């Protein structure tokens, strides 16, 4: 019977072992504390049980030394746990260089996934093993949460901005994908599968569904279709900034600030162009909020990113960590 009762899910990512190690440490620590307290209580209540011999309780005021001891010792242990947990959290949130990107859109009640190469999936995500994958996620309605227990990762997917998540799967196989933030009627139906494949198999899988064209290519045609090239030309005369080599680089704004053009910046510049005006330009670009759906936005973002000469893809200087959020939102 207990064969069907595992204590933790499979460890299928590089993160899982680290989390489990800390978890097991905490379980043992808790177990030790519980047992120590419970045994003490049991000993006290049996040894000092009220008897008919009329023995009275012995009044004891307290002990400052003990109070200090059982404040300071737990504090020390807590700080250890904090530091350990913080290290793991850093690993989870700070992205490694050279990651493969996949776009995720949550909506009531499904996961829509877009591969840079063009494959689109619903509620099923194919990824290669032993490759760092970055998920760039947004929601088109309410808050969802992308949760893969076997990878020990979770991140809320918030409408109106990108949040990111990365993982490196280690074991080929099929794993749960849950939405863990309550999102309405079919919340428990917003589940899917993560299919981890050997890299070679994954390459083969990629070629089977290429009908869509790559994400950046779709973005390029959308870019042309929306008339963007009228202003965003490749030389300086355009009324809008040149877009090649924007992504990942610092941009000087009209108000003197400098921001790094990350995913959220590009997204915002499309849906709400005038939030951050690039120095030397006028706020004349039309607002695309409501005119583009989240998938189209992702295509445009992917296109802008593809304009960078290779090797592209990594803006991930340690300063700009996983959840690239900015004070300004569309």
């Amino acid at each position: 019977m207990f064969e069907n009762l595992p204590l933790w899910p499979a460890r299928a990512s590089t993160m899982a072992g680290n989390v489990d190690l800390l978890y097991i440490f905490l379980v043992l620590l808790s177990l030790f504390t519980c047992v120590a307290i419970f045994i003490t209580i049991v000993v006290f209540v049996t040894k000092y049980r009220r008897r008919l011999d009329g023995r009275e309780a012995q009044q004891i005021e307290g002990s400052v030394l003990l109070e200090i001891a059982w404040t300071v010792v737990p504090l020390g242990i807590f700080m250890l746990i904090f530091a350990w947990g913080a290290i793991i959290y850093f690993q989870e949130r700070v992205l490694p260089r050279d990651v493969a990107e996949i776009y995720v859109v949550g909506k009531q009640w499904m996961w829509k996934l877009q591969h840079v190469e063009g494959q689109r999936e619903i509620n099923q995500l194919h990824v290669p093993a032993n490759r760092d994958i970055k998920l760039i996620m947004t929601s088109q309605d309410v808050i969802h949460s992308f949760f893969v227990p076997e990878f020990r990762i979770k991140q809320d997917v918030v409408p109106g901005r990108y949040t990111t998540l990365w993982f490196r799967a280690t074991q080929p196989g099929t794993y749960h994908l849950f939405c863990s933030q309550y999102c309405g009627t079919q919340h428990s139906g917003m589940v899917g599968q993560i299919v981890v494949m050997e890299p070679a198999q994954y390459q083969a899988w990629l070629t089977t569904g290429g009908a869509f064209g790559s994400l950046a290519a779709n973005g390029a045609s959308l870019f042309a279709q929306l008339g963007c090239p009228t202003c965003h030309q490749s030389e300086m005369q355009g009324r809008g900034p040149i877009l090649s080599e924007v992504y990942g680089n610092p941009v000087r704004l009209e108000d003197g600030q400098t921001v790094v053009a990350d995913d959220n910046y590009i997204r915002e510049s499309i849906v709400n162009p005038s939030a951050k005006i690039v120095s030397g330009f006028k706020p004349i670009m039309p607002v695309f909020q409501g005119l583009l759906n989240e998938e189209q936005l992702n295509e445009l973002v992917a296109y802008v990113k593809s304009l960078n000469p290779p090797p592209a893809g990594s803006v991930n200087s340690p300063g700009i960590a996983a959840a690239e959020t900015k004070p300004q939102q569309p």
Partner: protein
Amino acid sequence: MSDSPLLVEHPEHDNPALLHHFATPEQQRNTASLGMWLFLATEVMFFGGMFCAYLVYRYWYYNEFAAGSRSLDIWLGTINTVVLICSSLTVALGVKAAQLGKRKQLVGLLLATLVFGVAFLGIKGIEWYQKYEEHHIPGHSFDVSDIIQNYPQIHIDPSHSQIYFSLYFAMTGLHALHMIVGIGIFAFLTYYSWKGKYGPEYYTPIENGGLYWHFVDIIWIYLFPLLYLIDRKPLR
């Protein structure tokens, strides 16, 4: 007043204003005063939630907040501040009149406070009506194209403007609600002052009503710069 029959059973209380469960009038007064101050502390946190939202969005959407603030009538805002400060003076003097047992003076000062309070609400009403005519009230007919035209130098996103006006109406609305409650309390206090209920022996309600009134005044003292004075400097 379900307490009154109990007073009969306790003849040692010769002061009719002293409730049965207090030992001395002093204790009763201190109790009421502490209660009022604690209530004001909760009010600070009540407005605090909105101040928090204000702070976040002003930090994010400074341009829209600046433009929104410009569209308010600074004259009416200043006059309203003056009106409230005057009302605070009359309240403070009213408490003093009660302490000294000057009934007519007390009634006069409370009436003056009522007049100032109503004047404040009247001016606030005019301002809101202006906003209504300008379509600056959040909702379906919300439209800030006039603000956008007036300030071409600053880029303004209408939906962010709506956040400013949402906060403007939420904050001034709740403040006005507190004013209305305050006017109700003061009408009540005026009536009983006229009846001669309060004097040097017993003026706790006047004192506590005054504390409430001053508190509402203080909220406005902050709302005025936060909402009206964000950006008044000459445009470049």
